């Protein structure tokens, strides 16, 4: 297993474009801390983002995992190109001839995906922990370490998404087209949602059905955190609107994402096995 990771590390780290993207990704993950510095001070209006409670434990776990999950696109590019480059350079052929089995090849890619997800999760955990310790109004251990399930959701969300990218890379073999396909798929899910809602079911049923689609199921893992903010709730109350969003995590949502991950990896393997190179 270490050997497979080493192989993939040599391939990635010597590629300047991948290296730059990976470094920028982690740099941006860190830079979420800069949000804390947002401060408006225009005469009577004083606004300090860090003070409206976004860095309070345990809310910070929710907020940070939700926001940083958007940056996964950086790594998506790296993953799609690390897969499709093997095809365009024909190095996949040479790898197999040199004695890597097809299973090992997929495994080495999957292990890389898992490592990216683990490292991102650890990174977000550390950044959030530090930010929270500085700005949070609550600092009891029991509160700090509650709601850590958002980190688990973050991990599975990334792993599922990256596995999807991996599969697209193998399926399409060209990085630009694979990324295009990803966007196309997002649009497809949007249109499907519209069609189901329009012709077939009511809102709740549509949401339930859409929860089985790959991208939507990944999105469902961490729901938007903004309406949870006390400040937002207060505003809503004032205009007579009550926002009731179920932001809890459900076990079946995890299960769907894990199932998609398994399907994508298996399909990648099946595709590679079936193809003549």
């Amino acid at each position: 297993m270490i050997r497979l990771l080493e192989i993939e590390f040599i391939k990635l780290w010597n590629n300047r474009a991948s290296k730059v993207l990976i470094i920028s990704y982690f740099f941006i993950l860190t830079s979420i801390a800069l949000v804390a510095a947002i401060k408006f001070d225009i005469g009577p209006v004083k606004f300090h983002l860090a003070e409206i409670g976004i860095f309070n434990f345990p809310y910070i776990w929710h907020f940070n995992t939700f926001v940083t999950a958007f940056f996964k696109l950086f790594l998506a590019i790296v993953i799609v190109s690390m897969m499709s480059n093997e095809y365009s350079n024909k190095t996949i052929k040479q790898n197999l001839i040199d004695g890597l089995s097809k299973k090992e090849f997929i495994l080495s890619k999957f292990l890389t995906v898992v490592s990216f997800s683990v490292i991102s999760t650890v990174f977000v955990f550390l950044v959030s922990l530090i930010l929270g310790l500085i700005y949070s109004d609550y600092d009891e251990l029991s509160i700090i370490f509650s709601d850590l399930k958002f980190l688990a959701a973050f991990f599975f969300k990334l792993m599922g998404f990256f596995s999807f990218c991996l599969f697209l890379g193998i399926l399409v073999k060209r990085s630009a087209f694979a990324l295009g396909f990803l966007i196309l798929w997002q649009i497809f899910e949007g249109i499907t949602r519209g069609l189901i809602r329009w012709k077939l079911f009511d809102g709740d049923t549509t949401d339930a059905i859409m929860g089985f689609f790959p991208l939507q199921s990944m999105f469902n893992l961490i729901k938007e955190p903004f309406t949870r903010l006390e400040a937002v709730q207060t505003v809503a109350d004032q205009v007579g609107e009550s926002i009731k969003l179920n932001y809890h995590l459900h076990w079946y949502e995890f299960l769907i994402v894990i199932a998609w991950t398994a399907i994508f990896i298996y399909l990648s393997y099946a595709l590679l096995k079936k193809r003549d190179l």
Partner: protein
Amino acid sequence: MSTILTVNNLTKKFGYLTAVKNLSFSIEKGNVYGILGPNGSGKSTTLGIVLNVVNKTSGNFYWFDGNTSTHQSLKKVGAIIERPNFYPYMTAVQNLKLVCKIKEVGTEKIDEKLELVGLLDRKHSKFSTYSLGMKQRLAIASALLNDPEILILDEPTNGLDPQGIHQIREIIKKIAAHGTTILLASHLLDEVEKVCSHVIILRKGEKLYSGPVDGMMASHGFFELKANDMEKLAQSLKTNEKFGNVKQENGLITAFPTEEMDAKSLNESLFKEGIVLSHLVKRKESLEEQFLTLTKNQSN
């Protein structure tokens, strides 16, 4: 003598095109094999199948004694198929280190092999900056990293300039001299003739011949003769029952003996008849001539 590769009734179909048809052969340790055949005769497909990159339709093959999986066996094989495939953004050394990791061998032989193919001074250059000849040589170095039991080369001189072709041939000869088994696929017959002891001849996916180069045709070679009195010489040869076909071309008589005959005894007997030769050469048919005869016979 131990067997390195055994292929039984291998068949590969691409749609309704049959690229390899019921092919069987085996590769023994210590020989230098050539796979011959025109373009599209199934050479590369066959190699692709035994190298785990093309799926077979039916039949089977196994490496060594058949007790290890194909990908484990391939770690003891060195192979280059068609074009050298490396990561263009990595240097020669980085690429070779990666190959070592895949083959699970140490990295200490990298310099030695780069020296062998004459790339040691360019080892820190990126692969993308190499010329085609250098890329091909790097591929050979990479295939040799594990000191393989067998080296498989598919069209190693394709697209190279004469100098590059010469370099590659010298390297192949050097390797063959070390006793490494080599399997060389090519449609360049003189290339195969220069280095191979055994040949497998394919045409349209079917095997026409496999065995030693010398045994390809039941032939005793031929004589090229010249004398002052050509008429008399031709007459004498045509009446001699030890000769089958006698041809006269460009002032040179070519005579094909029907049994084994050496130049000395022919010279002696002709001299007794009063014919003094000014030119006498005994030759074997070149591989090219044999190959063309063989493929022609089969198509009739």
